[in-house]
C-alpha cells in the first residue's frame, strides 16, 4: 500500500478516535460547561451544549438542559423574551410531573415571566409563586428565595395601598425567614416597602433587623447604618439611637467616606448638640413640629 494512503488512513482513524472521545463526554460535564458559559453570558455556546444534552439524555439531566434552554430565552440580553419562555417552562412542567423541587422551581420561573410581561400580570405571578411555595420542599433555600420574589411583586407597581398590603403580607413570612441566609434581604425588602409608604417607624425597625441579621455587602451595610442614624436623628428624634448607629458605622465600616462625619455627629449628639456644625439644623424642625401640634 502506498505510503500516502497509509498516512491518510491513519489521519482519518485519528479524527474518528477524537470525535468518538468527544462524543463520549459525559452529559454532566457538558451541563457543567453549559452553565459555566451561561454564567459568562456566552448564551449561544451554552444553548448548543444544553441542546445536545436535551437530545441525548433522559430524566433529570434532560430537565436541567431544558431549563437551561428556557432560561436563555427568558433572560439573555439583548433579546430576552419572557413571553416566549412561558411555553418552554410549561412544557418542562409537564415533563417533571410531581417532582417537588423541580415543579416548584419551574413554577417560580413561570411566575417570573408573568411578573415581567408588559403589561405586567401581577396576580397571575403571585398565584404561581404561591403554588411554587406550596410545592417546594420545606428545607430548600429556594423556598425563601421564591418568597422574596413573591414579596417583591408588591413593590412593582406605583400603588401605595398595594405596597402597604405587601408590608402586611410579609408578616406571614417572618418566621420562616428567621435564621436563614435570606433573613437580612427579607428585612431589606420590608424596609423598601416602609420607605415607599413613608412609614418611618416600620422603616427603622426593618433596617435595624436587616442590619442585625447580617449583611454581606459592605456598601449595603454602610448604607443601612447611615440610614438608621439619619432616620433616628431627623425623623424619629431618638438621638441616643442615632448616636449609636453613627458610632456603629464608624467602627464597622472605617474605610467609609461617611465614617468621619459619623464620628463628628455622634460626638455632637452625645454632647446634646442638636444643631450640628456640619448637618442641617434640627432645632428649626423641632420648633416646626411643636408649632404644628398647637391649635
Amino acid at each position, binding site marked *: 500500500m502506498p505510503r500516502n494512503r497509509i498516512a491518510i488512513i491513519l489521519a482519518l482513524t485519528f479524527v474518528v478516535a477524537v470525535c468518538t472521545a468527544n462524543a463520549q463526554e459525559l452529559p454532566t460535564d457538558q*451541563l457543567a460547561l453549559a452553565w459555566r458559559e451561561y454564567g*459568562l453570558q456566552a448564551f449561544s455556546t451554552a444553548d448548543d451544549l444544553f441542546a445536545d444534552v436535551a437530545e441525548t439524555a433522559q430524566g433529570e439531566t434532560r430537565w436541567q438542559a431544558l431549563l437551561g434552554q428556557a432560561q436563555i430565552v427568558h433572560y439573555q440580553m439583548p433579546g430576552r423574551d419572557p413571553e416566549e419562555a412561558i411555553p418552554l417552562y410549561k412544557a418542562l412542567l409537564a415533563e417533571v410531573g410531581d417532582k417537588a423541587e423541580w415543579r416548584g422551581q419551574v413554577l417560580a420561573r413561570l411566575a417570573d415571566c408573568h411578573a415581567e410581561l408588559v403589561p405586567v400580570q401581577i396576580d397571575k405571578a403571585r398565584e404561581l409563586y404561591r403554588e411554587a411555595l406550596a410545592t417546594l420542599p420545606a428545607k430548600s433555600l429556594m423556598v425563601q*428565595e421564591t418568597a422574596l420574589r413573591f414579596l417583591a411583586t408588591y413593590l412593582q407597581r406605583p400603588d401605595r395601598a398595594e405596597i402597604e398590603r405587601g408590608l402586611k403580607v410579609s408578616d406571614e413570612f417572618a418566621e420562616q425567614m428567621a435564621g436563614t441566609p435570606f433573613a437580612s434581604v427579607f428585612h431589606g425588602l420590608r424596609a*423598601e416597602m416602609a420607605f415607599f409608604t413613608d412609614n418611618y417607624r416600620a422603616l427603622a425597625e426593618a433596617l435595624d433587623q436587616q442590619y442585625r441579621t447580617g449583611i454581606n455587602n459592605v456598601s449595603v451595610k454602610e448604607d443601612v447604618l*447611615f440610614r438608621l442614624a439619619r432616620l433616628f436623628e431627623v425623623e424619629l428624634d431618638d438621638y441616643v439611637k442615632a448616636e449609636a448607629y453613627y458610632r456603629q458605622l464608624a467602627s464597622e465600616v472605617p*474605610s467609609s467616606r461617611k465614617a468621619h462625619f459619623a464620628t463628628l455627629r455622634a460626638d455632637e449628639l452625645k454632647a446634646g448638640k442638636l444643631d450640628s456644625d456640619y448637618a442641617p439644623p434640627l432645632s428649626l424642625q423641632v420648633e416646626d413640629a411643636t408649632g404644628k401640634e398647637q391649635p
Partner: protein
Amino acid sequence: MAAEESKKESRSWSNYVAVMFLVVSFSVSLWRVYEVQQVEQATDVATIRVVHWQLEAGFREAFDVIAHRFEKAYFAETGERVRIVQNAISERVYKQYVQTQGIGKTLPDLVQLGRDELGSVPRFFISNTEDVQKPNPYNKGTDLEDVPWMDTYLDGMLGSVDQTDLEYYGASSSTYSIRMFYNADLMREAFDIDEPPGGYRDFLALCAGFAEWAASENRDDLTPVAASKYQADVFRSMRAATLFELMLENDRDFDGDFGANDEVLLAYAGGDFDYHDPRIRADEMTVANLTQYFAPGFMAMDRMEAQFRFTQGKALFCASGSWDAMSFDSQVDFPMGICDFPFPDRQDPEFGQYVRGRISEADSPAVFRLAVSKFSQHPDVALRFLQFLTSRENNQRFNQLSRWPPVIMGAKPHPLMEPFMRKPEGFWTADVNRIIGAGPCTAVYTQARWELVEHKVDFDGFADMLERDMPRAMAQEFERLLNNEWEERLAQEMSLSHQLGSYSFGETWGEAAPIPERVQSKMVYLWEMRMRRYRNSYRLLEWQKLLDADEPKAHEIQQHIKIDLERKQS
C-alpha cells in the same frame, strides 16, 4: 601614482575594517539570540510573564527590582528557579491586546486589569477569593501576620471584586490621588517664599500677585497656572464640601447620597432647590475664581501642552495625579514642590458659611491590579509573586521606587509621595446637576460650566443657562432612569438565574461542582443589590405627588416627557 597606491591601500583597509565590524556585530547578535534562547528554553526556570500599560518613568525599573527580589526569595524558599519578565504595552492598544490574547488562549501569566470587556475577567482569569481570605505569607513576622490578605489593604481589596461573578481577581499594588505641583524657584523669585500659602484666598492672591510680578518683569512667557481643559477638571479637587447641607436636606432616603440620582429630580421639581442656590454658587465659583489665572486660550490647549509648560518652568502651578509625579520630577530642572489643594475653609469671606470641611479621600481607588490568567503555566508561582509584591515590606519598597502611593496598611511612601497619601477625614460631595450618568443634564451642565470657567458668563448667567435647559434635560433623564433601572434589575436577574442553576444542580457537575456556601453567599449578595432596584414605583408615586401639588417645575418637566412613564418602568 604613489598617491593612487596609497589611496587603494587605505580603501582596502577600510573594507577590512568594515568586514571585521560586520563579523563582530553579527557574532554579538548571534550570541545575544543564543543567550535569549537559552533562557527561553531553559527547562529548570519557570518564567512568569507580566503585561501592563504603566509606561510612566521609573515604574518598570521599580517592578524589575521587586521581580529580582522575588526570584531570589523564591529560590531560597523552594530551591526552584523563577524568572519574572514584564512587558509594558501602550494603553491605546492594551484592551485589544488582552482581548485577542485571551481569545487565542495566549495571555501571559499576570495581566493588569482595568481595561477589560465586561464579563471577560471570569473568562480569562483565575479567581483568588479563597486566597484573599487567608493571611499573606510574606507578611510573616509583622503585625499583619494573621490578618487576611484582603484586610491588609487600605480599601479592604474592594477594588478586586469582579461585578460579573462577585469573585476576587488579582491584587492591586498602588493607589492614587491628585495634588498641586509648584515651581519653588519661581515662588522664591517672585515672593521670596519657599511654599505656597495653604488658604484658598491667599492662593488666589498669590496667583494674582504672580501675574502682576511677571508683567512688571516683562516675563510674558510666565503664567500663574499651567492648565488646559483637562486641568480645569483636575482643579475641581480644590472644592470644599459646600454642598453638604444641600445634599442632606434633600436626601429623601436618608442614605446621605444626593446627586446623580432620582433625588435631584424630585427636589428640583418640588422647588426644594434651584441652580441659583448660594451653596452651588460656592461650589462652582471655587474653581471659576481660579481659572482667570490660567493661560489665555487654555480651553484649546491639550493636557500634555499644559504640563510641558509647567516642566519648562513657565508656570508657577500645575495640578495632576500621583502617576505624573516622577515624570515631572525627572523632567524639571528646578526644585519642585507638591502640596494639597488650598480649598476654602469656614473663615472664607464669600463661601465660608457653606463650607463644612474638605472632601474625604477615603474612597480613592486601588490601582495596578494584576491577575493570574487561566493560561498561565505556573499559576501558583504567579499568585505567590502577587503576594510578595503586596506584602507590606515589598509594597513599600515597590512604591518608594516607582514613586506611587502604597496601598497596603502601614507601608510608608517615598518622600515625594507623602503629599499624595490619602486623607480620609472629610465630607463628600456629588453632582447635583444630573440624574443619571452621561445624559442630557450633564451636557447642559458641562456647556454652562465651560462658559463660566472661561468667564464668558458670571454665576447668574451660568445658573440661568441651567434653569432654562434643565427641565427638558431632566425629563429625558427621568425617562432614561426608569428604563435603566428596569434593565439593570433584569441584568441582575440573569446573574441570579445562573446562581440558582448552580445552587440547584451544582452537585451533579462532577469536578466542576461549585462550593455550595459560595453559591449561597453570591445569591444573597445579588439580592442585597437587587432589592434596591424596585425604586421606580417610589419615583412614580413621588412624581405624581408633585404633579398633584401643582409644583410649577414638575409641570414644566412633565411637558417634556414623551412616554408613558408607568409602562416604561416595568
